[in-house]
């Protein structure tokens, strides 16, 4: 904050502390990258984050590992993950756009209650709904089905999308709408022809976030997808390092391949995320 330069010893100490912390932050990540390229199934034989030997064997294993019917496990899990995450995003964004618009622009009784409801649902863990959803899906025969998982993920996706999109709609100017209304446009026309095009960046960010959330979800997928054919990437990756057999090399390769795209997306979007999360919390 202050332009005044402090004492040299203080400067050196600060840099030292920062570098130490950076090392602590980077270390686990480097360790996984090292393991991905280092031969052997064990986690680590040394604490050094630099591999002693480099191989791509783990990646080859990952991409060629076959399930009980000879299908490629990683490919199938990747397809499952992509389909589930895409469908969840589509459901979440599609259903939430209109609701977010209504909550942002209309004044009606129950509006505040509705907003609080969406916020509360977003804050309460989906693990609380895990059991009833499991019982229902079991009854409907939707365990081990992509559709079941999409329905479950939508429970968290919709409130999140509504809140972030509402925040975005709030930030758009009202003048355009008012001009359109004077020109005789209907409410639906205004929404379709003016608000949606204007909100495109907000919708894109929201969609990416809800895609990432579904892509990274572990516990519900592992509870509902008990059959190998339904595994998503997190479940597959966790299954490489269980109590019974642990292949940390395979795990590391899978972790690198799975996290890299979402980490890049995260870095691109991180500024929007903080705004969305705290806006929701402040106004609630």
């Amino acid at each position, binding site marked *: 904050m202050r332009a005044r330069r402090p004492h040299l010893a203080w400067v050196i100490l600060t840099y030292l502390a920062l570098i130490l912390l950076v090392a602590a932050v980077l270390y686990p990540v480097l360790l996984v990258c090292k393991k991905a390229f280092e031969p052997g199934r064990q986690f680590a034989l040394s604490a050094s984050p630099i591999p002693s030997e480099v191989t791509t064997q783990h990646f080859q294993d990952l991409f060629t590992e076959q399930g009980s019917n000879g299908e490629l496990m990683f490919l199938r899990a990747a397809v499952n993950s992509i389909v589930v995450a895409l469908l969840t995003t589509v459901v979440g964004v599609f259903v939430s756009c209109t609701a977010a618009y209504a909550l942002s622009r209309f004044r009606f009784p129950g509006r505040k209650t509705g907003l609080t409801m969406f916020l509360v649902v977003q804050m309460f863990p989906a693990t609380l709904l895990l059991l009833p959803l499991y019982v229902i899906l079991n009854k409907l025969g939707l365990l081990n089905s992509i559709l079941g998982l999409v329905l479950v993920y939508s429970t968290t996706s919709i409130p999140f999308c509504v809140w972030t999109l509402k925040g975005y709609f709030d930030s758009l100017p009202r003048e355009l709408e008012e001009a359109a209304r004077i020109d005789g446009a209907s409410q639906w026309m205004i929404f379709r022809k003016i608000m949606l095009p204007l909100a495109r960046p907000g919708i894109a960010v929201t969609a990416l976030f809800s895609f990432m959330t579904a892509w990274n979800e572990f516990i519900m997928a592992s509870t509902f997808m008990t059959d190998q054919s339904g595994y998503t990437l997190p479940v597959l990756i966790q299954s490489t390092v269980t109590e019974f057999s642990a292949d940390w090399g395979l795990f590391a390769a899978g*972790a690198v391949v799975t996290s890299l795209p979402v980490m890049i997306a995260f870095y691109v979007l991180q500024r929007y995320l903080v705004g969305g999360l705290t806006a929701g919390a402040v106004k609630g």
Partner: protein
Amino acid sequence: MSHPVVRQLRDFALGSIVAILIATVAFVAVRNRELAAKQIELATRAAEAIALGRPTLPAVHAGLVGEAAPSPKHPYLRQRQVLDGDRWRPLAASGSPDDKLFYDAASRFERQGRAEFAELIKDGSGRAIAVRDAQNPRATDRQRAGSGIAIAVTPPAHPAPYPWLVMIGVLGLGAALAAAGALVGGRAARAGTFAGIAALAIPCVLWSAPIGSTAIVLLAAALALAQGVRLTDRLARGVSRHRGALGFLAPAAVSMLVLVLVPFAIGLVLGFYDHHQGQWTFVGLDNFGEILSGGGRPLDDPLNFWFILGVTVLWTIANVVLHVTIGVALALVLSRTWLRGRGAFRMLFILPWAVPNYITALIWKGMFTGEYGAINSMLDYAGLGDVSWFGSWATAFSANVITNTWLGFPFMMVVALGALETIPKELYEAASVDGASAWQRFRHITLPHLRPALGPAVALGSIWTFNMFNVIYLVSAGQPGGSTNTLVVDAYRWAFERGERYGMAAAYATIIFFILLLWTVFGTRIIRTKDDS
């Protein structure tokens, strides 16, 4: 105001939607009950026939199953013979598709002390299975199989179709009654509404569904009363005034109703039941009693609710304190203008946030595990001995907290950085001019500006930490002996790892819900009133 008949039909339509929903639920329940009874009876008759050595019923797959004996080829497999039709063969995966059902049923029968049973098979196919003791098989069979077990499996059942015509008929009748009442006017209108809706209870009465019929009659009375105090008129006016907003809200509202509210209500109800081997029994408040009383376990037992609650509270406080301290400290350092590479440092420090948290948890699990774990290697290097991280409560709990601190501090740092940016520089300059010390500037300028942003972030962070599942489940996995489980993890274990105690798990979830509710209502208020001061 519109015509009274139109208004009357509007009210009738509103009521009839709910009434038809009730009737449909009643129909499905009754239909399944009748169907199940019929299937079970069929299976029982077939099994009894087999037990008495008579031929089975047509369409029912039934046979006499023998005692388990070691397989001649692989002695560790225990084989059973079955008299299927008129020849004996072994039960095997390669045999008839029902062989596994037969084998499992026979094993269960013996395990339960040769108790006969008949029930629907729990695969949603509508098939029933019945098992009867066949104590006196023919001499030749006895030689073959020892003491026999008669088992019968019915073919799948096709439930009766939905009675569309009946429903449309009563709907027409009801509408006519309601309209007639409106034409007469006055009290007759309300009587018409009551009669019209109550007419929809007729099918429920015919299906002998007392709950459904009562519910519909009560609904009819409620609607007539609501009409009396003009509640329906006011509701209709409100709907028509806000129909734009309602239309826009409808898709999300309906989705939330189906995906959140219904499962939530079911979860609440499940807490009052006990689940054992597919059977639900109503037990009232027993689950809650068992949880809140600690189940008769001592207070330091890892299954005692109060112990888990203590662990959870400790877990939440430790993490939030560490997240906020580290996050705010880093933000303060990173906001110094003399610091080079602030952007790069910021990008590096949010790395843990970008890594999917199940991967973070598994990495740290690997780092803590065994003598080859990276942490122990480092401790060795520093000349300290190995630590068996998951061997004692304190170290296992610390391992969880370290992992969660690693992945959680960036959020607080980013929030604090954002808040620091909003502080006008002039304030600091003015304070410096007035001779305020660094501590005084922090205490009276920085802190008050941080609070409005940090308050909600702390509220959110405490809820996230309270709910954190992956770290505990994947890092310590509750070790040692379940003592590091938090509430959400323990609720999960009741459902999926401790013999499907669904009722207990649901009761746990309800209690967790109320704890969180109390915290969001009162806890966040405490944080927020601090902001205002």
